[in-house]
Each structure stands twice: as C-alpha cells, then as structure tokens.
C-alpha cells in the first residue's frame, strides 16, 4: 500500500520539529510565559528575539526538558518533552545541542577534552577517531590551536566558540544557540553567522538562535519570533517583520527607545516609589 | 598533571592506607595473640577469679606460655573453673604445678601465674591443676588489715 505511506511521509516532513502550544510558565508569582505558541520547522534557522529578561533562556530550557511548563505542551520531533522522564528524555537530548549563554565549559578539563566529552560519554569510538572529530569541530570554530588551553585561559568569546564546537560534537538534529554572538569581534561574528547557516544547511540541522544582534540575526534567520511580556508579539520572516505595521516589530528592529517594549522590569510608578521611600525614612 | 602521575599518587595513597591498617592489626593489636600455635588445655579451680578475663595471659617464671580460654562457674562446687590454653612446646610441666592469680602492678591486669612443682610426671591435656591460689581482692585485704588493726589495739 504505497499510498498511505506516501501520505504519512509528507505529513511527517510537514510537522514542525518543535511545536509549542499554549505554554504557561511562572517563577513563583512572576509570570514568564502566558500562552505562547511557537513552531520551529525542520531545516530552518529560527530566531527568538525579545528584550532582556523576557524568558528566552527559559524557553530554551523548557524545550530541552530542564524545566517543566505549568500548562501547555512542548513537542520535539513528535515527543512530548514536558512529559518525558529519565531514559527517553536523555535519548532525545542526545539529538539536541545547546550552546549556553556563558559557555558552561567543564572547568576541570581542557578545550580538547571538553569537546571530546559528549563523544566519550555516548560513543565507544576509538581515541584516534575522537581526535579527528574534535579537531574537525575545533577547526570549524577557528580554535584548533587553542586545544590545550584550560577554560579559565579563554576569553568569553573564545569560550562561547568552544561551547559551540561542543554543542555540535554529536551531530545533533537540532542546535539551540543562546546568544552566540555576544562578545565576538566583528570578524569572528561574521564567521559565526556564516558557520551557523552553513552547519544548518550542510548537516541538515534545525537551529534555534536567541540573540539581540538584529543585523546578524536577520541575515541568517528564516523565521523570527518576537517575545515580550510572556507573549509572542510579532512573528514572520525578516521581510515580513520589516513591512509589518506592528509597533513591537518596528521598535525592536530599529532599537527605538519609545514604544510598546518596556525597558523596565515591572515596577510601581517611579514617583510613587520615590515617595514611598520618603515615607519610610 | 598527567593521569599517569595521578594514578601513581593514588596508588601510593592506597598502599599507605593499607599498610597502616596492617600495622594496626599486627603491631598495635593482639592479632598475633590470636594466632596461637598448637596447644593443649588444662583446668584449674578457684574460689575467686575477679578481674581475670578470657585471653588473659598465663605465665611461668614471668614468661608467657599460654592464655585463659574459658571461665565457667561450677554450680555444684560453687567455684570458678578456668580453662587454660598452654602452648604445646611447654608440655613437660610437672603434675603438681600450682596456679595463682596475680596482678601486674598495683592496679594492672590480672594474669595466671604457674609455679612448677617437683614431680617427675607431667601435666597431660585435660588434667586439672590441684594447687591454686585465688585472686587478691584489694578491698578484702584492706578490710582484713583494718580488722586486724582494731583487734590489736583493743585486745
């Protein structure tokens, strides 16, 4: 019966790799997500943008299954991450790479061992093959010469590139980049931007990029989500956002100080706060 | 640090720890005393064995030749029956050897001291030492001494 099979195949290809529906998440009384829907299609580079503290890092952790939503569902490759535990969750995570905002390199090993770490933990490859793979990843991020340095001897930007090499060590189906560009000089920034795009296309990856760097992000992202105050406030391709009449999109893309995006963490009115201080004194 | 030097250090550490345990067992404790060679048993009856313990030494002429194996109470005779374990090498103790309970130093531990008699025939395994002298109990001695003292004063 070739017909149904064909049908199923198409459907599978069409379903997004990550499918988030009605996501609710709060830290104590501080609501971070209040009903977010996000689809990340296979093979694309999707950017998540938004002001500092809106919960972009939190979103990546929810996708990775490190946090559990209060409500709603998160599916990765058809599997409900929010309900997975133990072995199944770890099996899924082997197919996800994540670049942490501050690198999160293991400080008791050098650069080489850091990148070899996931390979050694999850494969039984001979050391010679591991060496080849590690050097390949290091070459890709331009740090092959730094392989004997300890993490404490790296600059912030270098550490993040090492972390990137580590995130792709296991050739995952999806890589999540938490602010990959911060702290990079213009040259390595350009290299990284191209690297993310090339990796994505050459290895048939799916990439999620969290970033504040509008120019670079727009250059590589196929689709952009703008988050603010627990909601998706705008979405679309780079051009669609450019042309959209959403005040959110305009303010964020052009970095205008005035607009709907709040610069301040939620607080009582400024004057009130000052007066309250006076009363207390 | 290379993993080789690290492993060597850990090896040194573990070896030192085991050596220390070995020293505690062999040189500090009485493990050596547990490993008695071939021996034979004789018994002795006492009216009072206070302070004597299992594994207390048995000496002759000040040399340790065995140890106390068991201390029991005989309901019939209302006496203490002490089983002594004596080294097989010393199997020519005369039959009329006597046993006394002594104290090492004024407050030290009790031990069984044997004194040789003059008979030709020697003690055989399972024999009983007939001549015994009891443990000296300090309180009793003092009580006796005071009683005597008072008696002397007021005849």
């Amino acid at each position, binding site marked *: 019966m070739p017909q149904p099979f064909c049908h199923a195949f198409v459907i599978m290809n069409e379903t997004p790799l990550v499918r988030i529906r009605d996501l609710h998440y709060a830290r104590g009384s501080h609501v971070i997500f209040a009903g977010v829907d996000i689809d990340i299609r296979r093979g694309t580079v999707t950017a998540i943008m938004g002001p500092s503290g809106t919960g972009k890092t939190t979103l990546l952790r929810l996708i990775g299954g490190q946090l559990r939503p209060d409500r709603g569902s998160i599916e990765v490759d058809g599997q409900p991450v929010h309900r997975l535990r133990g072995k199944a969750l770890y099996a899924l995570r082997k197919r996800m790479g994540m670049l*942490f905002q501050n690198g*999160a390199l293991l400080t008791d090993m050098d650069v080489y061992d850091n990148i070899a770490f996931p390979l050694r*933990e999850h494969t039984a490859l001979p050391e010679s093959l591991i060496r080849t793979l590690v050097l390949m990843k290091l070459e890709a991020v331009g740090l092959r010469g730094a392989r004997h340095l300890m993490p404490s001897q790296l600059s912030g930007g270098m550490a993040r590139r090492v972390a990137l090499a580590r995130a792709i060590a296991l050739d995952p189906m999806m890589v999540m980049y938490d602010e990959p560009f911060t702290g990079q000089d213009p040259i390595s920034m350009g290299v990284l931007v191209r690297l993310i795009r090339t990796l994505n296309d050459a290895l048939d990856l799916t990439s999620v990029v969290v970033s504040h760097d509008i120019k670079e992000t727009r250059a590589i992202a196929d689709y952009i989500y703008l988050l603010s105050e627990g909601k998706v406030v705008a979405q679309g391709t780079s051009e669609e956002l450019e042309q959209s009449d959403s005040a959110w999109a305009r303010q964020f893309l052009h970095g205008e100080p005035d607009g709907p995006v709040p610069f301040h963490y939620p607080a009582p009115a400024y004057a009130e706060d000052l007066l309250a201080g006076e009363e207390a004194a | 640090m290379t993993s080789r030097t690290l492993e060597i250090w*850990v090896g040194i550490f573990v070896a030192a*720890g085991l050596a*220390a345990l070995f020293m*505690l067992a062999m040189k500090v404790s009485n493990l050596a005393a547990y490993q008695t060679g071939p021996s034979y048993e004789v018994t002795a009856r006492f009216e009072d064995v206070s302070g004597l313990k299992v594994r207390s*030494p048995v000496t002759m002429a000040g040399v340790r030749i065995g140890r106390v194996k068991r201390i029991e109470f005989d309901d019939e005779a209302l006496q203490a029956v002490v089983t002594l374990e004596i080294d097989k090498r010393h199997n020519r103790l005369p039959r009329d050897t006597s046993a006394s309970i002594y104290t090492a130093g004024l*407050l030290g531990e009790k031990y069984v001291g044997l004194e040789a008699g003059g008979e030709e025939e020697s003690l055989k395994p399972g024999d009983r030492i007939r001549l015994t002298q009891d443990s000296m109990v300090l309180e009793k001695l003092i009580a006796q001494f005071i009683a005597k003292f008072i008696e002397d004063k007021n005849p």
Partner: protein
Amino acid sequence: MTEALRQLGLVGLGFFQRLGRAHLLLLAILAGVPPLFLRFSLVVRQLYSVGVLSLLIILVSGLFVGMVLGLQGYNTLVDFGAEESLGVVVALSLVRELGPVVTALLFAGRAGSALTAEIGLMKATEQLSAMEMMAVDPIRRVLAPRFLAGFLAMPLLAAIFSAVGVIGGWFVGVGLLGVDDGAYWSQMQAKVDLYDDIWNGVVKSIVFGAVVTWIAIFEGYDAVPTSEGVSRATTRTVVHSALAVLGLDFVLTALMFGD
C-alpha cells in the same frame, strides 16, 4: 506571637524539606555507584583530590596528636608508676576515638569544603545544566564518583592517622622520656583488641566518611547558585559535618563499647 510560631513552623518545614532532598539525592547517588566499577578511572581522579591531597594534613596532625598523647599520658601514668602502659593509652585513644573523629573533622575541612565549593561552582556556572543537556546525568557522572572516593578514602586516612600517631607517641615516650621499648609495644598488643578496638574504629571511620561526603555533596548540589550561596554552603558543610561526626561518635561509641 502567632508570627513567631509561624516562623518556627517555616524553619522546621525548611529543615525537613532539606532533609528529604538530601535523602533522595543519596538514593540517586547510591544508584549511580555500581556502574562506576566499570569506569573506575573517574573514581581514581577523585581519590586523588579527596585522599592524596588530604594526606599531608593527616600525617602531620596524626604525628602531633600522637606526640601530645605520649607526653600527657606519660605525665599522668608516671605518678602511678604505670608508665609502661603508655602504649596502651596512646593506642586506645587513637584507634577508638581520636583517629576516626579528628580525621573526620580534618577531612570535612580539607576535602568536604572543597567538594562543596567545586560542585556548587559547577552548578553556578551551569556546568551541571550543560551536562544534563548533553544527556549526561551529573549525579552519576559528577556526584557518584566523589561519593565513592570519599567513602573509600576516609577509613584509609583514619588508619594512617592512628598508625602515625602510635609512632609519634612511641617517639616521645620511648625516644625522649625513656619508657621501655618492649613494654610500650607488648602492653599495647596485650590490651588492644583487634575486633573491639581496631575494627570498631574502622567502622566509625567508614560511617564518618560516608556522612561527611554525603553532607558535602548535598550542600554543593543544593547550593544557591551564586558566589554567596556557594560560600554559605561551604561553611555549612564544615559546621554540619562537625556536628554530625561528634553526635554520631557518641551514638556509635555507646553502641560499640557501652555494654
């Protein structure tokens, strides 16, 4: 009044929650121990930082404690003309009490605090999170080898402490104060029992090692992931370990020698 009661309740609640988390963590760690025997190199690395690096302080302290025991013991015993028993006094104090207890206290200060700080910082710098995202369970990969290493190292360290202490006491008593060499060792051997004294001391040190390592690892893993949180956790490790060791010592002593 009600406010005070409420605070008291909160404190108690917090205490029992932490206790519960500590026990759950211990179970998870223990589940991670058997697979370690297939990857013993992980444990060897930790034996280095927990054991080898504590060796110097243990050797020096053991030697001096033994020497002090020799001096004090001699001064007391010589009044009774019983200085021959010096070996007994030194050896019994060391193998029954001072060996396990002082080693455990030093171990908490040297190795325990280092464990807490290391694990706490790994948490604060998201290294543990990163491992989780690489599908590596930090409890099995990071905590279990450290626990096993502490568990194995502590009895060895305590034995080294006692052995060196006995030699220190010998040095002072026999070497400096003129106690008879033969009497020092033979009296010791006559009075120190392999099971009652040595083995019970080893049991104590095993219990202390497991408890101190457990506290240190839990405090690190449960630390607030900031520099301040880690420094508080490190302090707590030392304080709680010391209290636990002294309290348990009383209980164990009563169980072992209190018949």
